[in-house]
C-alpha cells in the first residue's frame, strides 16, 4: 500500500513515475479517512488545495522536474498547527485565534514548497505548544496509534501520531523542551530537533523564542535528513538564524560507528526510569558499542536544574509572545466596556488552563522585585547547563540517553498534576537550553502493552550531519523502525 512507504521510498517511486503525487496524496487522504477518527491527529484538511498542489507537481514532473533539484517533489507532508501558510488557518490548537487565516507564508513553508513538497493539513498539538500529551488542545486530544487510550506525547503529539499511523510521509513540528523528541519516542517514530538557528522560525507561532526550533518527524532517520536539508539555512527574516553552510545530510549517511565516542551522562540515568525503558536503553548502548562506538561516562552536573530553569525562561518569553492575542487586530474578541476588560474577557475565555498558568508564571518571574531571583538567575543557570554540554563535547561526539523516562502514559493520568507532566521532558529539556541538536529514534518496545521506547542522541551545535549518521547506523542495525502500530 502506498501510505506504508517511507518518504524516501515514495520519492523513488515518484522519480520512476511509478506513482503520481496525486496518487500519493489520495493515499494519505484515504488512510486519514480510515484511521483518523481513532487517532485524531488532523484538525482540518483543505483537500482541494492538497490535491491541487499534487496536480501541479505532477505537471512539473511531466515537464522534467527532478528530485535532484527538488528532493521533496510530490511528497505529502503535514504541518503542526502553528505554521503560517498564506490563506490557511493557524490556530495553535487554541480557541483564541478564531477563524484567523495567515496573510503570509512562513520561511519553512516556502522552503518546503520550493523543494516540491505538497503541504497539507493542520495537525493537532498542545495549545500554543504548551504540554506533553496534546491533552491541552482546545479541540480534543490526539491518541497514540499504539494504544488509543494513551497519549501520543506533546506538544507535537499530533505530528508523531500522524506519522506513526501512516497518514502522511512526514510531519513538521517544533521542539521547545522536547516537543518533537518526546512524542516521537512515545509513538515510535524519528524526531529531530535541529540546533537553535539552523532552521528559520519566521512564520512559526512562537512559544519561547530562545528555545523554539522547527524539526521533522518521520518514519526513519533518512527521511528526517531529507526534510532537514530542505528546511535548514539562514533566513534574512530571522536574525537568530545562522549563516552556516547546510551540508547534504542524506549523502553523508551510511557507515558504522567506528571512531565515534558516545557520552553516557550519569546524571540522566536516575532512579525513576521505567525498568523496561532502562533495559531497552542499555541494550541500545551495547548495540552502539558493537557497531564500533566507544562509550564514555560524562558528567553533566547541572542537569537537575534543567526543568526549573526551563519553566522560568520559557514562560517568561511566552508571557510576552502570547500578549499579542488580545482581540484587537485578529482572532476572537470578547468585548468589554474598555480596552482592559476587553483584554481580560478575550484572553480569559480564549486561552486554556495550561496556557494561562504559564502566562501567569512568566509574568510573575519577570515582575519588578522578582526578576533577579528568577529570570536572571535562570539565565545564569542556563549558561552553566550550556557549559556542561560544551565540556562533554570536548571528549565525546554525542550524548546517548533515553528520550523519556517511561513509555506513553494513559490519557488523563497526569492532567491534575502539572509537575508530573513537566517531568516527562526531563531528558529533553537541557538540549534546548544549551541550544544544540538532538534526535529521538525507536530503540525497543515495552511488553504489555506493546509501546515504543525512544533513544535520544544529542549532538554538537550544528553537528546534525554527524548526529544523523550515528542515528542512521544504529537504526539500520536494528528492527525497531520497521514496526508499525496496528490500527
Amino acid at each position: 500500500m502506498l501510505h506504508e512507504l517511507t518518504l524516501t521510498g515514495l520519492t523513488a517511486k515518484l522519480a520512476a513515475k511509478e506513482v503520481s503525487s496525486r496518487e500519493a496524496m489520495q493515499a494519505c487522504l484515504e488512510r486519514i479517512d480510515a484511521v483518523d477518527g481513532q487517532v485524531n491527529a488532523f484538525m482540518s484538511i483543505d483537500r482541494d488545495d492538497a490535491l491541487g498542489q499534487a496536480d501541479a507537481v505532477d505537471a512539473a514532473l511531466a515537464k522534467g522536474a527532478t528530485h535532484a533539484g527538488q528532493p521533496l517533489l510530490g511528497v505529502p507532508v503535514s504541518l503542526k498547527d502553528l505554521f503560517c501558510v498564506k490563506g490557511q488557518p493557524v490556530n495553535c490548537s487554541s480557541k483564541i485565534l478564531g477563524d484567523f487565516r495567515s496573510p503570509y507564508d512562513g520561511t519553512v513553508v516556502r522552503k518546503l514548497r520550493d523543494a516540491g513538497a505538497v503541504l497539507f493539513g493542520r495537525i493537532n498539538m498542545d495549545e500554543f505548544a504548551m504540554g506533553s500529551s496534546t491533552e491541552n488542545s482546545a479541540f480534543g486530544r490526539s491518541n497514540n496509534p499504539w494504544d488509543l487510550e494513551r497519549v501520543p506525547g506533546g506538544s507535537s503529539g499530533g505530528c508523531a501520531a500522524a506519522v506513526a499511523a501512516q497518514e502522511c510521509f512526514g510531519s513538521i513540528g517544533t521542539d521547545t523542551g522536547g516537543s518533537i523528541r518526546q512524542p516521537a519516542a512515545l509513538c515510535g517514530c524519528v524526531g529531530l530537533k535541529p540546533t537553535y538557528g539552523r532552521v528559520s522560525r519566521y512564520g512559526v507561532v512562537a512559544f519561547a523564542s530562545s528555545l523554539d526550533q522547527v524539526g521533522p518527524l518521520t518514519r526513519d532517520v533518512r527521511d528526517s535528513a531529507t526534510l532537514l536539508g530542505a528546511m535548514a539555512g539562514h533566513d534574512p527574516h530571522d536574525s537568530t538564524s545562522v549563516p552556516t553552510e547546510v551540508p547534504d545530510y542524506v549523502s553523508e549517511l551510511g557507515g558504522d560507528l567506528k571512531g565515534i565516542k558516545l557520552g553516557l551522562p550519569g546524571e540522566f540515568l536516575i532512579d525513576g526510569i521505567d525498568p523496561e525503558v532502562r533495559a531497552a536503553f542499555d541494550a541500545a548502548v551495547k548495540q552502539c558499542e558493537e557497531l564500533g562506538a566507544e562509550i564514555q561516562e560524562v558528567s553533566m552536573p547541572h542537569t537537575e536544574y534543567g526543568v526549573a530553569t526551563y519553566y522560568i525562561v520559557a514562560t517568561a518569553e511566552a508571557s510576552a509572545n502570547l500578549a499579542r492575542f488580545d482581540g484587537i487586530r485578529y482572532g476572537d474578541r470578547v468585548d468589554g466596556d474598555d480596552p482592559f476588560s476587553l483584554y481580560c474577557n478575550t484572553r480569559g475565555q480564549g486561552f486554556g488552563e495550561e496556557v494561562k498558568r504559564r502566562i501567569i508564571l512568566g509574568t510573575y518571574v519577570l515582575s519588578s522585585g522578582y526578576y533577579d531571583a528568577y529570570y536572571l538567575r535562570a539565565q545564569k543557570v542556563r549558561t552553566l547547563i550550556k557549559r556542561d554540554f560544551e565540556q562533554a563535547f570536548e571528549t565525546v561526539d554525542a550524548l546517548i540517553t533515553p528520550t523519556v523516562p517511561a513509555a506513553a502514559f494513559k490519557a488523563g493520568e497526569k492532567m491534575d498534576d502539572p509537575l508530573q507532566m513537566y517531568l516527562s521532558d526531563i531528558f529533553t529539556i537541557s538540549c534546548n537550553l544549551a541550544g544544540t541538536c538532538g534526535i529521538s529514534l525507536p530503540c525497543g518496545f515495552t511488553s504489555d502493552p506493546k509501546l515504543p521506547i525512544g533513544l535520544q542522541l544529542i549532538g554538537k551545535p550544528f553537528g546534525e550531519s554527524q548526529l544523523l549518521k550515528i542515528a542512521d547506523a544504529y537504526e539500520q542495525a536494528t528492527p525497531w523502525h520497521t514496526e508499525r502500530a496496528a490500527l
Partner: protein
Amino acid sequence: MQYEAVIGLETHCQLKTKSKMFCGCANEFGAVPNTNVCPVCLGMPGVLPVPNERALQLTALTGYLLNCEVPGFAKFDRKNYFYPDVSKDYQITQYDFPSTTTGHVDFEFGDGIERVRVTRAHIEEDVGKNNHFAQHSGVDFNRAGVPLLEIVSEPDLRSADMAYEYLNALKDILIYGGISDCDMEKGMVRCDVNISVRPKGEEKLGVKVEIKNMNTFSGVRRAINYEVPRQIETLESGGTLVQETRRWDDVAGITESMRTKEHAHDYRYFPEPDIMPLKPDETWLAEVFSHIVELPLARKQRFVSDYGIPAQDADVFVGNVPLGDFFEQAVEGAKNAKAIANWVINNLQACLIETGTTVDELKFEPAAIRELVAIIDAGTISSKGGQEVFAALFENGGSPAAIVEARGLAQVSDSGELDKWCQDAIDSNPDPADDYRNGKENAINFLKGQVMKASRGKANPQVVGETLAKLLKG
C-alpha cells in the same frame, strides 16, 4: 525660601530612514491609515523583527554627535504593556545596554554656553496611533515600527527657557547630522519632562513629576512654567508632592494627574530573544564615524573667529548650511570677509528665495563673489554697478570682469578727463563753488552731481570729490 527647579528631558525623535525599524514597510508620514503595514509591524502570529541597519548607523552617529560613548555591546529588550496601539503588546526598545551612553550637548543660553549631560540615546520602535470616533475607535499602524530615538538628559536643566534652548539645540544637531527631519507638525519629535523642585543650595532631589507626551517645544516651556510654581506653591503652603505622571492640557494651560507611583506600570523588561545582541566592530564604527558633521555651535564659533564676521551673520550660515558652505568657498583668500558675507546674505540669499532655486543650481562659482567685492573695493566699479554685475551673474553666470567689460561699467578715475569735467562744473556753477570756498562744505555735493551727470555715471565718485576739492582749494 528660594527654590530651584531640576529638570530632565526624554526626547523621542523619528529617524530619517526609508523603511521601518524591524520590517520593510515605508517610514512615511501622512499615508492612508493602515497602508504602510505588513505582518511584522501588525504583530501577526509568527513574525520576527529584523533590525534596520541604517537606523543602527544613525543611532551610533547620534551618539558621536552628542559626544556619547558607543559601546561594543548593546542589546534590545521587550517593554511589556497592553495598549491597542502597541501591536505586539510589547515595545522593542533598549533597556540596560543602550547603543550609546554618557554624552553631552553644549548650547547657547543667555550670555554664555551651557552644557547638559546626556545619559543615553537609545533606539526603539514607535507605536501606532489610536483614533476615536463617535461610536468606535480605530488604530492606525502606519507609525508602528518607525525607528524612534530616545535621548535622555541628566537633570541638568534649571528653567523652562533653558529647556527650550536645549531642545532647539538638540533639534539643530539632529537635522545637521541627517538623523531626523525633526518635523514637529508631523509628530517627529515628542518629549517627556521630569520636573522636581528643591530649596536652593540643597543637594537632595525633590519628588519627581513626569509630564508625558508633549509634542511642541513651546508646550514644554509652558508646561514647565506652570508646573514649577505649582510644586513650589504646594510645598510652601505646607503640602506634599507625590511621585506621579501628569498630562499637559495645552488648551487650559495646566498639568493634571494621570497616575501615581502606586499605579505605575511594571514593564517587565527582559532581553528580546528574537534579536541577537549588537556587537559593532571597529570597521562598522569607523564607517559611521566618517559621517560626523560639524555641530551648529562649533560652526558658528568657527565662522566668527576665522572670518571675523558678526555673530548674526554666522547664525545665518549655521541655519543655512549650503549658503554657509558657499560663503566659505567665496571667502577663501579674500581680504574683505564682511563684504562677502553681506553679498551672500543680502543679495544671493534674497535671489535664491525669490527664484526658488538652490545654491547647487547657481550658474557661477563662489570665487565670482570674491572677485566682485575685490573690484568694488578697488574702485573699478561703483557699488551700484556692483548690483548690476551681480544681477547679470545670477541670471547668466560668467565672470564679474567680463560683465564689467561687456557692459562698460568701469568707472573713470583717469585724471585728464575727470579734471576737465570738474573744471567745467566749477566754471558753470560759480555760486556753489563760492559757497564751498566760504566754508559750506555740503555745496560740493551739487558739483559732484553735475560731474556724475556729465560722465553719465561712469566717474568714480570718490575721485571726483577729491579732484573737485583740489581744484576749488587750488
